[in-house]
């Protein structure tokens, strides 16, 4: 089976502590709606969905509040065994902000339940009735080659479904949800089955077309099961063994996927679908980092495999915009640099006038997403945030859990499909004003003002379980050091470029203090992320010749830890003062306040360049919650800052 769909790869994997999360939910007092939703926001298999569904049912039956989840009562009528599906529906609904009560009458009592005024379904006053029928439920007569008989069969089937709809309408106020029918993979003739009237395949084609029209005309909601089954493959969808043994209408492995599709449809009926697509830029909208690679270096062109993958993301964003989804940008970048590709790159499909709110700055993304929601006057739960960086995704999930954040695979070739598979923008209707909505938001949106508050960033940093490793320059790290020195533009104080022999010379000079810095966290090893070179200046002074850092680890206080390390070695070497300089370039505005933030004092300014000093004795650079490892200096030293 295709794992994107069968394993729902847009959702984070189920954590080991999932059983504990469930126990907690049963044990705590107070509101558990948000906990239920958080637990549901993983790719849960059938057994886990079943457990979560039961916990939610128990809470609801005990009269506990599940706010902020919204209540919905769904009657499910089926000709097959849906007992596995029901708890999965309850759990999946929580994922989409719904607390679902399922009314499930006896097996295979579809018509009786709908047409009898005092049936279980009709007296339960449901919000909607789902006709979870598969092709085996239909009064179908196979008549290969007989067009008249085929038409009569199709009419008969649609007449039956219309009777069901009329029954619901006359005995309750419930909305009807009809499914299209997934044809079985077996054919009788082969390809001719599709062309010949009266074969099962061609009848199901006809029936699906008619049901779709009937649903649309009568205001019923359509769940395109035929489309879903085709997407995952009919041979994987239909499982003869399970039908024979237990009358399961489709493979058990696809129950979580089906349940999610029902849940997103119900959420759409309650207006809880995404309204805004918020895009990260570097390595999401284009390949590469605009601040480092420049306009010519980013990958966003036809003819380049990576570029085309990112263009596909742009195309999908534009298609969504065309149907009324609002687009916004949330990127860690300097604003002018981030806008450059939109304004100047000829192959970019997205232009600035497509973007309602453009947030490019160095603040944390959770805060920026709140600004975007406020600017557009929508709830945080209306935002869908697409970002290639797992650290950013995780931060947003923790600090702004209402935002919908799809997981993305390594390869950008699958970004657009993964976003689509998540169904974040599911809609049950389309109206003229949808077309105008994107523009409406845009006209009203001003650029959101930045909020400086950082939420609960300390706790987040601690949860990253970071280890920072310091080491002087040495041979194995040299190639990467040279690369960083020659490639880093943004977090680079002096932008001095050095060749490999020059780096090697610094490495061997006992008077020069060098530092290569690595950072690992729960997501893996970030590799080398910072480089420092200090050269002896006047008596007792170190001149910071080079200080650069990878933007991947911005906002983690790595620079504070680096300064702490420098100070320690300076003290040991009898240095009493550090001197730093900021040399401005087109690209390094990001670090204009680097030395000020670290407690240096400005001593002079010359043509935009600023000169700074820090007295070693008594300097306190602050710290960050990370484990520190120092290698190869005068022996191994370890410590932890909490």
């Amino acid at each position, binding site marked *: 089976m295709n794992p994107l769909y069968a394993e729902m790869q847009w959702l984070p994997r189920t954590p080991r502590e999932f059983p504990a999360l469930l126990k907690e939910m049963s044990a705590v007092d107070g509101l558990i709606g948000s906990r239920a939703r958080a637990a549901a926001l993983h790719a849960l298999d059938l*057994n886990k969905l079943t457990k979560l569904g039961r916990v939610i049912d128990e809470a609801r039956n005990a009269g506990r509040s599940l706010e902020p989840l919204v209540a919905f009562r769904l009657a499910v009528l089926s000709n097959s*065994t849906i*007992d*596995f599906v029901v708890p999965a529906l309850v759990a999946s609904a929580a994922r989409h902000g719904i607390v679902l009560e399922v009314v499930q009458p006896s097996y295979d009592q579809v018509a009786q339940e709908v047409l009898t005024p005092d049936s279980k379904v009709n007296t339960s006053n449901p919000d909607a009735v789902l006709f979870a029928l598969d092709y085996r439920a239909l009064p179908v007569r196979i008549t290969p080659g007989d067009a008249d008989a085929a038409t009569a069969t199709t009419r008969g089937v649609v007449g039956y479904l219309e009777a069901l709809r009329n029954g619901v309408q006359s005995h309750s106020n419930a909305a009807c949800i009809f499914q299209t029918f997934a044809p079985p993979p077996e054919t009788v003739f082969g390809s001719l089955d599709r062309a010949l009237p009266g074969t099962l395949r061609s009848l199901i084609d006809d029936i699906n077309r008619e049901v779709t029209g009937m649903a649309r005309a009568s205001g019923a909601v359509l769940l395109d099961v035929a489309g879903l089954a085709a997407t995952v493959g009919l041979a994987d969808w239909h499982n003869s063994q399970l039908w024979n*043994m237990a009358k399961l209408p489709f493979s058990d492995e696809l129950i979580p996927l089906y349940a999610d599709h029902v849940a997103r449809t119900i959420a759409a009926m309650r207006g809880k679908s995404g309204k805004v697509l918020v895009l990260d830029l570097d390595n999401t909208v284009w390949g590469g980092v605009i601040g480092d690679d420049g306009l010519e270096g980013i990958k966003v062109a036809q003819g380049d495999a990576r570029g085309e993958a990112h263009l596909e993301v742009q195309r999908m964003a534009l298609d969504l915009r065309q149907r009324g989804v609002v687009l916004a940008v949330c990127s860690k970048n300097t604003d002018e640099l981030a806008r450059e590709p939109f304004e100047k790159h000829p192959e970019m499909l997205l232009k600035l006038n497509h973007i309602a709110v453009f947030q490019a700055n160095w603040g944390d993304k959770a805060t920026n997403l709140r600004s975007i929601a406020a600017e557009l006057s929508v709830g945080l739960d209306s935002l869908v945030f697409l970002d290639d960086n797992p650290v950013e995704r995780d931060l947003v999930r923790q600090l702004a859990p209402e935002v919908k954040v799809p997981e993305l695979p390594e390869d950008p070739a699958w970004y657009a499909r993964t976003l689509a598979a998540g169904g974040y923008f599911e809609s049950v209707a389309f109206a003229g004003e949808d077309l105008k909505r994107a523009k409406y938001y845009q006209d009203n949106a001003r650029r959101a003002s930045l909020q400086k508050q950082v939420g609960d960033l300390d706790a987040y940093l601690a949860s990253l379980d970071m280890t920072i490793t310091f080491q002087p320059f040495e041979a194995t790290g040299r190639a990467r050091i040279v690369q960083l020195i020659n490639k880093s533009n943004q977090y680079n104080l002096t932008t001095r470029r050095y060749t490999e022999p020059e780096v090697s010379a610094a490495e061997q000079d006992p008077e020069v203090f060098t530092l290569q810095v690595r950072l690992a966290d729960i997501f893996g090893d970030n590799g080398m992320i910072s480089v420092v070179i200090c050269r002896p200046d006047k008596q007792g002074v170190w001149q910071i010749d080079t200080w650069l850092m990878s933007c991947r680890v911005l906002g983690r206080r790595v620079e504070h830890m680096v300064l702490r390390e420098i100070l320690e070695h300076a003290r040991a070497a009898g240095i009493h003062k550090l001197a730093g300089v900021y040399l401005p370039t087109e690209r390094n505005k990001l670090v204009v306040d680097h030395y000020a933030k670290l407690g240096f004092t400005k001593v002079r300014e010359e043509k935009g360049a600023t000169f700074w000093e820090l007295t070693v004795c008594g300097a306190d650079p602050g710290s960050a919650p990370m484990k520190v490892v120092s290698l190869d200096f005068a022996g191994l030293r370890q410590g932890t800052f909490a």
Partner: protein
Amino acid sequence: MDDKQIYAKLAEVFADVFDDEAIEVKPELSAKDVDGWDSLSHIRLILTVERAFNVKFSTSEIGKLQNVGDLATLIKMRTS
């Protein structure tokens, strides 16, 4: 796979399917001994076993199972 490994893994599967860590998974255990082990959860049990051990059983094999011992024997046959 030896019996010990099979039973250890089966214990995980039972805990997952029946949401009960206390079930003692032994050869003579059968549906009448476990709360909630009805015909439907039996199917869910078999499907979870198939996935956990990466095996597939035929309809008639599933039909013949009387207790956990039968199931373990079948798994052993498939995984050795």
